[in-house]
C-alpha cells in the first residue's frame, strides 16, 4: 500500500541540525493497520506528513497505492474568514467529491448546526476538531492517517467518532499515532516504534506496546 524506500529527513533550524529519519526503508503491510509509537519528538508526525505527501523527504522515495487521506486531526488548513460550509466545499472540490453530499454528511455528523454558516475564526478548538474529523470521515480513502484524532470532543462525540471509524475498518486501512494504548490495541495489528536510537517494526501489537512501555520507562 505504502512503500518507503531509503528515506531520510532532517531539519536544520538556526544552524542546529536534527536528523529525524535516516535511510528508512519499509513496506507497510497491505492488509494491516499500523501504529506509529514513540516518545515526543521522535518523528511520528513527520513520518505521517511524509506518508501523506504534505512534506518531502530529503532523500529517497515514497510510493503510494490507492487514495491516502491527509493527516487527520489536523485542522490547520481551514481559512478563518471562510465559513464552515465554504471550507467543507473547498476540500470536497479538491478531492473531486460531490460537494453537497459531503456538506450534508458533515452537517449531520459534526452537529455544528447553524455555526456552519459562521466564519471558522468564531469556532472553539473543539468545534474545529469536529468539523475536521467530520470532513475526513465524509471523504472515502483507502488509507486513513490518524494523528491523535480520537482525543477530540466530549465523551458522546468520541463514541460517535469511534463508531464511524469502525465502519470504515473493513474497507480501509489505517496508520495511527496515539498515546492511548487501549486505542492502539483496538485498532492496530502491528506497528513501528520510533526512537532516537532507530526505528523497529513489530508484527504483533502486544510486543510493540511492551517495547514502547519499556522505552518510556527507561527514559
Amino acid at each position, binding site marked *: 500500500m505504502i512503500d518507503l524506500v531509503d528515506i531520510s529527513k532532517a531539519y536544520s533550524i538556526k544552524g542546529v541540525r536534527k536528523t529525524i529519519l535516516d535511510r528508512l526503508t519499509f513496506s507497510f503491510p497491505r492488509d494491516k493497520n499500523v501504529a506509529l509509537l514513540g516518545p515526543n519528538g521522535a518523528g511520528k508526525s513527520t513520518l505521517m*506528513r511524509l506518508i501523506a505527501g*504534505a*512534506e518531502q523527504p530529503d532523500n529517497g522515495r515514497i510510493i503510494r497505492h490507492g487514495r491516502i487521506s*491527509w*493527516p487527520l486531526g489536523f485542522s490547520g*488548513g481551514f481559512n478563518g*474568514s471562510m465559513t464552515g460550509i465554504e471550507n467543507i466545499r473547498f476540500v470536497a*472540490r*479538491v478531492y473531486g467529491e460531490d460537494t453537497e453530499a459531503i456538506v450534508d454528511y458533515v452537517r449531520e455528523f459534526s452537529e455544528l448546526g447553524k455555526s456552519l454558516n459562521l466564519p471558522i475564526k468564531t469556532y472553539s478548538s473543539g468545534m474545529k476538531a469536529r468539523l475536521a474529523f467530520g470532513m475526513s470521515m465524509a471523504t472515502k480513502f483507502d488509507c486513513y492517517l490518524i494523528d491523535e484524532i480520537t482525543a477530540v470532543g466530549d465523551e458522546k462525540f468520541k463514541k460517535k467518532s469511534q463508531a464511524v471509524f469502525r465502519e470504515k475498518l473493513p474497507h480501509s486501512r489505517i496508520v495511527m499515532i496515539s498515546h492511548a494504548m487501549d486505542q492502539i490495541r483496538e485498532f492496530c495489528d502491528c506497528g513501528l516504534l520510533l526512537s532516537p536510537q532507530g526505528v523497529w517494526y513489530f508484527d504483533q501489537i502486544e510486543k510493540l506496546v511492551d517495547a514502547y512501555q519499556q522505552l518510556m520507562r527507561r527514559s
Partner: protein
Amino acid sequence: MQAALTAQFRVIGALILRETRATFGTSQIGYLWAIITPAASTAVLVAIFSVAGRHPPFGPSLALFFALGTFTLEFFTKLGNSLMVVFEANKALLSYPPIKEPDVLFARATLIAATYALIMGIFFSCLTILDLAEPPAFPAAVMEAFAATGLLGLGYGATNAILITVFDSWRHIEKVLSRPLMFISGVFYVPSYMPPQVVAWIEWNPVLHCIEWMRSGYYSNYDSYVLHRGYLLTVAVCLIFFGLAGERLTRSRRTRS
C-alpha cells in the same frame, strides 16, 4: 496522465474559488471594489493631466493612452507582488496532499488575470461608449499583448517567490527596484519618439514591450520601432522556467513545519 491532469484542474478550480472568496470578502461588493479601485485611480490620473492641459502623446484620447499603459503595468506589478508571497500565504493548504505549490501559484495567477481582463474590458468599453476612444483596431493583438504580460508577470512573480525563499530580504529590494517601472516603461510617453540613446537603455525593460505591444494592437497606426515581441517572450519563458524549476528545487525547504 489524463486522470492526473483532471485532478490538477480540479484542484486549481477549487483554489480559484477559495482565493476569490478570500481576496474579495463575503459580499459581491468586494469584487466590485476590486474592479472599481484601479479603474478609478486611472481615471483620476487622466483627469489631472486633462486639467493640466496636456495633449495626448499619441492618438486623440489622453484617457486611452494612459489607460493602456497604466493597466498593463498594474497587471504586471500585481502578478509580481501577489505571487511573491503566494507560498507563505497558502502554506497551511499544503497539508492537503493533492494540493501542490504550483497549483496555488497558477490559481492565484488565473484569478488576477481574470480580474484584470474584466477591469480592462469594462474600462475600455466605457471609454468607447462615452465616445472617448475607438474600439481596438486589432483585438487579437490586444489579447496577445495581455497574454504576454500575464506570462511575464507569472514568471516574475514565481521568480520572486523563489528568491524570497532563499533570501528573505528580496521582498524589500524588489520594491525599490520596481519603483522606477512607472517611468521606464513608457506609460507617459511614446518610446519611439525618445532619443535613440534613451531607447538603447529602456528597451531592456520587458514591461515596456508589454505596453508597446498593447498599444500596437489598440491603435491602427502605432508604428513602434522599439517593440520586440521575441525579446519579451524569451524573458517571460526564462523567468517561468526559473520560477518553476526553483520551486521544485526549494520545495522541501519551504514545506518544513
